[in-house]
């Protein structure tokens, strides 16, 4: 399996081996292996209920798996708390946008810098010079990120008051503000109109080209998947059924069956 666009194995950023997550009696994810390589955009696709979001929740520490391991940059992160996984360099967005609605857009992004700052209770109450310098840095990073997603004019609007498409971009900016090495996006194009989807695609391409970053995303929109992915992994019923470069996946009979066999109209 020589895949020209993929780099060698020692460039693996994230590796899951045999992860299994069970809800009640249901095996949402079963014995799932995934390797994400440095600098690539990897799309995880599959029909509704295939277990994609569960994989994301296991990777980002929201669920801990019954079996299996998650290794990130050579370190085992299985079962660690979400905040500590963010510190180690994985940031995420949610399928149904989860911002801090009653905080301003800029504050939302500043929250992303939280894990890169150290000021404690004493220095915060007394506003020590070190704390002020740190606040200054947090604000500078947040301002750069908000400019990057072109939301600077809305910096002081409450997050709940901006347009849906802008909220999606704000959530990505918040994730970027945590200074991640791996960005995990759960259906970033869902709810966006065609123009916004195009903008998102070119944004992600620019991002991966300009920063030391790897992107893992769940996507339903096949145009997006085919347009930006370096590698595609297909899930069905909690298992991996295929993986490969986008063109190969597009013509894979198993994949077509998984989609058309059960979940017409989707994708």
């Amino acid at each position: 399996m020589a895949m020209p666009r993929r780099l060698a194995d020692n460039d693996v950023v994230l590796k899951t081996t045999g992860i299994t997550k069970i809800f009640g009696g249901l095996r949402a994810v079963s014995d799932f292996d995934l390797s994400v390589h440095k600098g690539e955009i990897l799309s995880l696709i599959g029909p509704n209920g295939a277990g994609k979001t569960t994989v994301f929740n296991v990777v980002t520490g929201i669920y801990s798996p019954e079996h299996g391991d998650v290794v990130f940059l050579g370190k085992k992160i299985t079962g660690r708390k979400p905040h500590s996984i963010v510190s180690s360099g994985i940031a995420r967005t949610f399928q149904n946008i989860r911002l801090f609605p009653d905080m301003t857009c800029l504050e939302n992004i500043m929250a992303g810098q939280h894990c890169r700052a150290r000021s404690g209770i004493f220095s915060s109450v007394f506003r020590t010079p070190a704390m002020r310098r740190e606040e200054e840095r947090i604000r500078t990073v947040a301002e750069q990120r908000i400019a990057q997603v072109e939301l600077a004019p809305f910096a002081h609007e409450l997050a709940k008051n901006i347009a849906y498409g802008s909220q999606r971009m704000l959530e990505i900016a918040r994730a970027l503000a945590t200074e991640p090495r791996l960005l995990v996006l759960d259906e970033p194009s869902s709810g966006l109109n065609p123009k916004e989807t195009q903008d998102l695609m070119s944004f992600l391409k620019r991002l991966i080209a300009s920063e030391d970053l790897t992107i893992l995303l769940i996507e339903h929109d096949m145009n997006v998947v085919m347009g930006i992915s370096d590698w595609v992994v297909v899930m069905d019923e909690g298992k991996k059924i295929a993986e490969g470069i986008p063109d190969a996946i597009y013509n894979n009979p198993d994949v077509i069956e998984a989609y058309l066999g059960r979940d017409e109209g989707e994708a």
Partner: protein
Amino acid sequence: MQLLLEQLINGLTIGSFYALIALGYSMVYGVLKLINFAHGDFFTMGSYIGYTMLVFGIAAATAQFGPWTGMMVALVVSALGIALVGILVERSAYRPVYRAGRLPAVVSALGASIFLQNTIMVIWGPRYQAYPAELIPAMRFQFGQISITLLQVIILALSFILMAALYTIVQKTAFGSAVRATAHDRNTAALMGINFNRVILFIFTLGPALGAMAGVMVGMYYRQISFTMGWNYGLKAFTATILGGIGNLPGAMFGGLILGVLEMLGAAYISAAWKDVFVFLILILVLIFRPTGLFGEKTAEKV
């Protein structure tokens, strides 16, 4: 052994008060996600209405037709009266703030509680009142070593009948399933054609009515009532609701009974003064290990 059994019966007796009150909390919480702080005061007011009936209105009837009539009339009038109060409170204090979210409703509920409590004080006065003695003949039944009073038998029987009736209505009738559906998902239930206002009407009639009857029974059991007693009973009943798993009706009933038994066992075997501490400690321990109560469903948050 004898002490244990007698404390069990005493515990079940108070537990059935808690259970009846807890049902009201649980129903309102299930549908509105609101802690109805005024519920304890429904209970108190029910007790006072029963007191008035027994002392003034129907003393003559009791003398003529025997104690049972007095008790039944007191229970029924108190239940009807408090059901009406319940609807009025819902209309005036809760309905206008539902839409604003949960927290304003909490303040509103506290306001309603203060209002009701002080209404009781204004009407019946700040002092303790005493239920008439000997409403029920002071008979005792002896089962081996343990004895149980006729009043306890009546209270236990009546409570279990009421709980069974409520359970049947909620679990077995079409209207009950409308209530459960609304508790589960208000919006979907509304889409299925369930009339939300009728569900509200239902829970704000039955809940307070059950609380009121518990109030009358507490009056007959302890004889002494005060206008502030709703706080204490309300707190215990709310604890029972959580212990059983919030919004879960059988859970609330069992929670109440378990709480009553724990309280009496704590009083007998640990110390009467520390019994409530014991009860709250158990509650906290249960929640540490079962964060959604004894019978609550474990809910994984959808992410």
